[in-house]
């Protein structure tokens, strides 16, 4: 059984805030939920499936269902694979709809790390001592930035990737973000400016890192008949793949990501190849994150990502693979330190033809959205979606 064509994304909404000191996390979840339902032309009374992950305060979906007043739920899912959760939720929602478990599934993400002053990427986190890896990592100062930096260093060693090539990913994102009025960083930057920004964790510079932002996003996944009745462009889920990658008991290999598994699964289900994709939303917590996933998804040969991203090849209207046309996590938004849902939202905009005219891909009928959650340097979830406009 396949989920191909079994469900559609009818609603997508990104909260415009990037700093929400006067709002609670639960409130942000509620605001994005209403935003996505309004976008779909549906109401809370239509929702019979609810999906959330670790950013939702409370026990799984219970507190949020209560707070949101969702009283028709017959299917819930709180799969948490970090920032890739929401792409997995779309696939799980499609599966649940295909099985008749629900008709209208709501997915929410929200958080306020910026208002809470989290030194998100640079502070080692003590974590829960029952988590078996913590005692073997926390003493060494493992932090998000240095884990990704170690991937970058190894990639450079094996493939000759350069800091200049990584910088091109930020440059492309900034070209897109200049057109997004909500983006945190709207100034177009150059390769030289990325390289001149301070080193955070060698070889990654500050401008290789994504923003820290408050906010959130929501999606509404529905049965295709419902989507076709709503009078909006119909975005169908054509294929999905998931994977988990970790340290493998010390047989660690930091040169690839879970996308090497989740990508082919999604392409196989969709019956398409990377060459067919018109637009790609690819998770960009750091420039190296994007580069490694790009290779693993098959957009270029392994190890050739550096050459692929250089010279503006990711810039809409200029390059071969327009990516993250909202400015991505690098420039626009990274709500709750989780980039997955914004990847789906911009892919939906592109497929509907509702992206900013300056970055809209002409006749964008097939798009990919891909997320990583956790850390490429230790353990992470990986989720890929192939979406199409009917």
């Amino acid at each position: 059984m396949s989920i191909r064509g079994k469900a559609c994304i009818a609603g997508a909404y990104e909260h415009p805030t990037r700093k929400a000191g006067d709002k609670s996390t639960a409130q942000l979840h509620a605001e994005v939920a209403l935003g996505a339902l309004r976008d779909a032309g549906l109401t809370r009374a239509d929702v019979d499936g609810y999906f959330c992950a670790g950013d939702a305060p409370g026990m799984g979906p219970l507190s949020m269902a209560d707070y949101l007043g969702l009283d028709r739920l017959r299917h819930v899912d709180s799969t948490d694979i970090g920032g890739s959760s929401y792409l997995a939720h779309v696939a799980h929602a499609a599966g649940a709809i295909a099985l008749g478990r629900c008709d209208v599934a709501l997915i929410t993400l929200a958080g306020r790390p910026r208002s809470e002053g989290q030194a998100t990427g640079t502070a080692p986190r003590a974590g829960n001592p029952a988590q078996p890896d913590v005692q073997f990592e926390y003493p060494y100062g493992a932090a998000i930035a240095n884990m990704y930096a170690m991937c970058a260093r190894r990639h450079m060693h094996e493939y000759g990737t350069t800091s200049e090539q990584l910088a091109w990913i930020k440059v492309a994102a900034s070209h897109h973000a200049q057109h997004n009025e909500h983006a945190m960083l709207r100034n177009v930057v150059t390769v030289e400016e990325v390289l001149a920004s301070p080193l955070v964790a060698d070889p990654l510079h500050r401008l290789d890192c994504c923003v820290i932002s408050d906010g959130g996003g929501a999606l509404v996944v529905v049965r295709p008949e419902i989507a076709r009745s709503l009078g909006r462009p119909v975005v169908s889920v054509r294929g999905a793949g998931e994977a988990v990658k970790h340290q493998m008991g010390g047989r660690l290999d930091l040169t690839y990501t879970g996308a090497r598994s989740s990508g082919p699964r999604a392409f196989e289900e969709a019956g398409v190849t990377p060459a067919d994709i018109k637009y790609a939303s690819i998770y960009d917590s750091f420039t190296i994150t994007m580069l490694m996933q790009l290779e693993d998804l098959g957009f270029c040969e392994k190890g050739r990502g550096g050459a692929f991203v250089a010279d503006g090849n990711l810039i809409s209207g200029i390059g071969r693979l327009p990516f993250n046309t909202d400015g991505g996590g690098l420039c626009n938004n990274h709500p709750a330190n989780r980039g997955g849902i914004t990847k789906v939202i911009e892919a939906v905009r592109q497929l509907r033809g509702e992206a900013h005219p300056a970055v809209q891909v002409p006749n964008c009928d097939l798009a990919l959205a891909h997320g990583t959650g956790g850390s490429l340097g230790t353990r992470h979830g990986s989720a890929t979606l192939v979406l199409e406009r009917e």
Partner: protein
Amino acid sequence: MTAMSDSIAQRVPPSPTPDPSTRPFWEAAKQGRLLIGRNTATGAFHYPPRPVDPFDDEGEVELVPASGRGTIYTFSIMRAKTPYAIAYVELEEGPRIMTNIVDCDFATLKVGQPVRLVFVKSEDGQPIPMFTPAG
């Protein structure tokens, strides 16, 4: 110690919280030994050591001391208030393990560089296995 221009202040690592299954590992560290897991049936090594082998259903896990020799698989210099070098070191026995490289000039560290085991005391005195350039 004049070569330590970039690492004059040595970071004092926070202490681990051992659990019942890892107490032998941390006790051995106090004796200057780094224990890794070995499968009694297959001989395969794993790290971090755990009572149930991550690779094979057969065999038992025994804890054995690593030689303490290895090479740097990858590393990053964290530009914190007190900078430190975090790394994965590939042990002679095979496993690639997260660690710090200490007593070194950060600017000279290289992927593939030989390193040897040392222990650095954490906040509560528990020695933590780390590595330093060999020879």
